[in-house]
């Protein structure tokens, strides 16, 4: 056998690959004599490291080979995402989810600066007296949210809106605003 070829096997088993040593991989697996060299070189390595098992069974690989002979050929799908891209891809997905979550929270108005519940609940006793209601609205709104000034007739308009919405909601099967509706409906009956 070509000495250079055996040297390629030596390089291959050390993982110091170049194009030449890669090219012998197929031949190495097909050729019985070359496989024996591969086996003996590895036995030398295990022996030097003191890793030889108590019983060396040279027929083991042949038995495995015979057992998988009748197994269907593996045709695994080719991987399209390389390993170094996976963390980047994961980060991009996580960042997208975070952005959507932040925008969603702002859009749905569940943050602490949104105050319709507080306004409506606090103003409830003042509805019967428009003047007091207007005064109270301004004071309470300033306490809850100093940057936002609610117009004088806003509470009455908001309550009417919620009553209308409640009627629409029951017809359209829309969920939501139940706490507001309960309060406003009670006020409407009064």
């Amino acid at each position, binding site marked *: 056998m070509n000495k250079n070829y*055996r*040297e390629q096997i*030596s*390089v*291959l*088993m*050390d*993982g*110091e*690959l170049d194009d030449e040593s*890669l090219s012998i*991989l*197929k031949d*190495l*697996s*097909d050729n019985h004599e070359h*496989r*024996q*060299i*591969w*086996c*003996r*070189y*590895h*036995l*030398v*390595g*295990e*022996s*030097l*490291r003191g*890793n*030889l*098992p*108590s*019983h*060396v*069974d*040279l*027929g*083991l*690989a042949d*038995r*495995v*080979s015979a*057992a*998988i*002979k009748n*197994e269907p*050929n*593996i*045709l*695994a799908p080719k*991987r399209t995402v390389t*390993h170094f891209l996976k963390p980047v891809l994961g980060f991009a997905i996580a960042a997208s989810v975070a952005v959507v979550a932040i925008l969603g929270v702002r859009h749905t108005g569940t943050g602490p600066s949104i105050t319709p519940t507080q306004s409506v609940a606090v103003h409830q006793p003042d509805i019967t007296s428009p003047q007091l209601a207007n005064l109270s609205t301004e004071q309470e709104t300033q306490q809850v949210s100093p940057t936002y000034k609610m117009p004088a007739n806003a509470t009455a308009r908001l309550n009417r809106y919620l009553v209308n919405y409640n009627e629409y909601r029951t017809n359209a099967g829309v969920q939501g605003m139940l706490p507001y509706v309960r309060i406003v409906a009670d006020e409407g009956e009064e």
Partner: protein
Amino acid sequence: MGNNVTDQQLVERVQRGDKKAFDLLVLKYQSRIVNLVSRFVRNPSDALDVTQEAFIKAYRAMPNFRGESAFYTWMYRIAVNTAKNFLAVQSRRPMEAEQDIEDFEQIGGENALKEYATPEHMLLRDEIQETVIKAIDGLPDDLRVAITLREVEGLSYEDIAVAMDCPIGTVRSRIFRAREAIDKLLKPLLDR
């Protein structure tokens, strides 16, 4: 580590349908896996059976191997699980010791009871070890140091070149010549 590159190439070949590439992985790792399994399964013959089963399971699972870990790490887990399963099955078979020897004789064919761990295998192990030590002792210093740094210390060619103050091509040649010298003594032993 460079070794993983070769494994990766072999794994990709197996995943493209090249069964013989899997043989090279078996030949490469059989000793380590037998040693590993032997820590769980004391009977040497059972350990060889479990090793064989572990490799077959690995082959079947090859489409699921995505290369996120080294092949050996993946194979290691399969071997340990196979060994543990074997022990679990053994512990649920209290009657086995009472089975008549005739039961085994009647099995026959492919399922016949085989004794892989024979005294000859144990003797072979000792002979290989002696032969390799003898061959290493007979090597010139530069070859002995090169093969030892590679096989025992696991250094790359580049690191060995630095350690031995020589070009990488010389390292490659020295390691190969050392292997050849050892193989010259080992081959007749294994061909017997």
